[in-house]
């Protein structure tokens, strides 16, 4: 039984209404232009603002995890630190190496930031708040993401620096390897929803049985898929523990080593934008997008739900970064191809089983649901245990001995 | 000029550019790139005829392009692997210097 949610509609649709009001009150010939601008500008303003908030959050959070204070000089508790950072990066000298390929060196950060912004075009950040409602939205997201690899290569190659080239090669190898589990874990959701449109994927999840929403993450395949998706997303955005491309202790800073000033800030911005975008896609696919988990919470406006979930995932990213050490290259590749890839295939099989098992058995909907849930969980858990056993075979886990340090 | 003729003109220009590159460049990689351009020109024709043809609902040209993209991916992978293998053997990827067939 599905209940459509409509309370607090005014607060929910305030931005949509505002946009239509503004468009209606502009003279005729400019209406298209104003409508386009009103779609683009919020994205260009909101997500960099979120980037500023995240940098403070990250530095404070990491500081807490590592038993120190973090930035606390600019403003109360250091909350104005991003402003100081912005002033610093804007006034810093922009150094380009003499032997660098100037045109490509100049273009690389621009391409990276442009593609990072484009990815937000298909994310539904609230009810009726998708910038471009494409029929193939998920495909668009991944197609745009593919262009970032080229931008990373441009940055690494044009700098004429062995560390930057090494970093770019590592980044591309890693992004290609983890793109496959990322796409395959989304395939399960696409199979169940029967659509590639991000808006409709969220609409499918915004229904309630009793009080609980139909989020994909509440199903066994959805839970496993969500975990795999977020691991792959961490690797895709070069976040710790998958930050080998920038590994500052080995290759200094990877592909953007030769960038300074504003261009460096652009790389930083693009990295965080990618993190937001891929988290946004994870929310859209698995966490019900802008919908609330329980029907009695549906009065909270949809955009608050989306950004709340986004902030929760960002906190998760920061927590993981403060907790886990960096992987080695061979561990990274083994993990991608020997664990992630088979597990995503298992998730797809489980989603198929979910699709074809009846939801109700012998007139009892609850019993059928429980049986379906258990069978699908078994389809995921069995191969997981078997795979873990095979991968762990012959590996002795013992206390680590340190050769040079005590 | 109607849109179909425009598409055909663009695709024949692209095909010629790719052909000229494949015939004149000496790097084996660029020869492969020229072939890819020619393949893409053909794809553009398929899309154009599907879009402006009498029966777009059958999706024939459209599906052909999707298959063609898949074939191009396989072709590029195998072709570039061949070029890398040849480079490892002959220390060059210049098509006018690779003249021996004997390994």
């Amino acid at each position: 039984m599905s209940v459509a949610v409509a309370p607090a509609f005014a607060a929910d649709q305030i931005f949509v209404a505002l946009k239509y009001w503004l468009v209606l009150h502009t003279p005729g010939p400019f209406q298209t232009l104003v409508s386009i601008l009103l779609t683009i500008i919020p994205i260009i303003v909101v997500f960099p603002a979120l980037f500023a908030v995240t940098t403070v959050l990250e530095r404070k959070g990491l500081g807490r995890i590592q038993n120190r204070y973090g930035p606390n000089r600019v403003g109360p508790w250091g909350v104005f630190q991003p402003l100081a950072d912005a002033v610093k990066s804007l006034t810093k000298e922009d150094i380009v190496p003499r032997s660098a390929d100037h045109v490509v060196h100049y273009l690389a950060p621009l391409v990276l930031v442009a593609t990072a912004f484009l990815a937000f075009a298909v994310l539904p950040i609230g009810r009726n708040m998708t910038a471009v409602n494409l029929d193939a939205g998920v495909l668009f997201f991944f197609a745009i993401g593919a262009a970032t690899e080229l931008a990373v290569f441009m940055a690494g190659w044009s700098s004429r620096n062995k560390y930057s080239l090494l970093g770019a090669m590592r980044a591309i190898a890693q992004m290609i390897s983890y793109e496959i589990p990322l796409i395959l874990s989304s395939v399960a959701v696409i199979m169940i929803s029967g659509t590639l449109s991000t808006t409709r994927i969220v609409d499918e999840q915004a229904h309630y049985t009793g009080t609980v929403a139909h989020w994909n993450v509440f199903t066994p395949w959805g839970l496993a898929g969500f975990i795999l998706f977020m691991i792959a997303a961490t690797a895709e955005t070069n976040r710790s523990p998958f930050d080998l491309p920038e590994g500052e202790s080995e290759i200094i800073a990877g592909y953007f080593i030769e960038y300074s000033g504003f261009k460096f800030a652009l790389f930083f911005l693009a990295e965080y934008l990618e993190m937001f975008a891929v988290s946004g896609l994870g929310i859209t696919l698995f966490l019900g997008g802008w919908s609330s988990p329980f029907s009695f919470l549906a009065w909270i406006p949809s955009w608050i739900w989306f950004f709340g979930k986004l902030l929760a995932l960002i906190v998760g990213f920061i927590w993981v970064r403060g907790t886990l050490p960096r992987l080695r290259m061979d561990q990274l590749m083994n993990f991608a191809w020997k664990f992630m890839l088979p597990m995503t295939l298992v998730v797809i099989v489980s989603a198929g089983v979910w699709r074809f098992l009846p939801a109700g058995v012998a007139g009892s909907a609850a019993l059928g649901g429980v049986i379906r849930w258990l069978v699908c969980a078994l389809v995921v858990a069995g191969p997981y245990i078997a795979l873990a056993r095979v991968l762990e075979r012959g590996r002795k886990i013992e206390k680590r001995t340190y050769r040079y340090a005590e | 000029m109607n849109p179909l003729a425009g598409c055909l003109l663009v695709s024949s220009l692209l095909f010629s550019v790719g052909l000229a590159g494949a015939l004149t460049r000496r790097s084996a990689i660029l020869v492969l790139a020229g072939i890819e351009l020619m393949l893409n020109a053909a794809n553009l024709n398929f899309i154009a005829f599907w879009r402006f043809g009498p029966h777009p609902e059958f999706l024939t040209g459209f599906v052909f392009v999707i298959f063609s993209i898949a074939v191009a991916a396989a072709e590029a992978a195998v072709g570039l692997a061949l070029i890398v293998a040849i480079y490892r053997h002959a220390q060059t990827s210049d098509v006018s210097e690779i003249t021996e067939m004997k390994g």
Partner: protein
Amino acid sequence: MRMTLPFLILAILTLAGGVAAMTLRRLVHCALALSVAFAGLAALYLNLDAEFAGLAQLLVYVGAIAILIVFAILLTRGGDSDAEKSFSPAGIGGAVIALAVFAVLAWATETSGIAHPALVTPPPESAMREIGLALMQRYVLPLEVIALMLTAAMIGAVILAVRERRNPAGTESAERPGLGA
């Protein structure tokens, strides 16, 4: 019905990318220009209402093939090849042949009847659902054949590119350490 301005801009972008890819001296520049041409073509497909084909083109060509080409260039030390030797002596002949081919194609386009009648078909419903059904029902056999071919190509590429372990004496130079191999 006439050609629209976006179509013209995208066509010029695509052709400029293609020409640059075939004429630039540096191989890496060629690869980057080639990816511009691929991206332009993807945008042309989108302009022609072929949404799925355009996005697949972007995903496969820009995301995979351009990257493969770049890797191949770096693996064959093409990133720092000298500029003067990049054109073969048969350059003029090749250009003439290409021009002749273009002339024939353009003539055929101009004179054939098919390009001229004003076809005013409405934009087809290129819904994902229709494409999925077509791929799963009418074209399911080609789809399976493509899957088999991709598997074969993948195995073949790996076998070709993998470094030979046992070298006969005299070809030790093949064991030079390469980038990321």
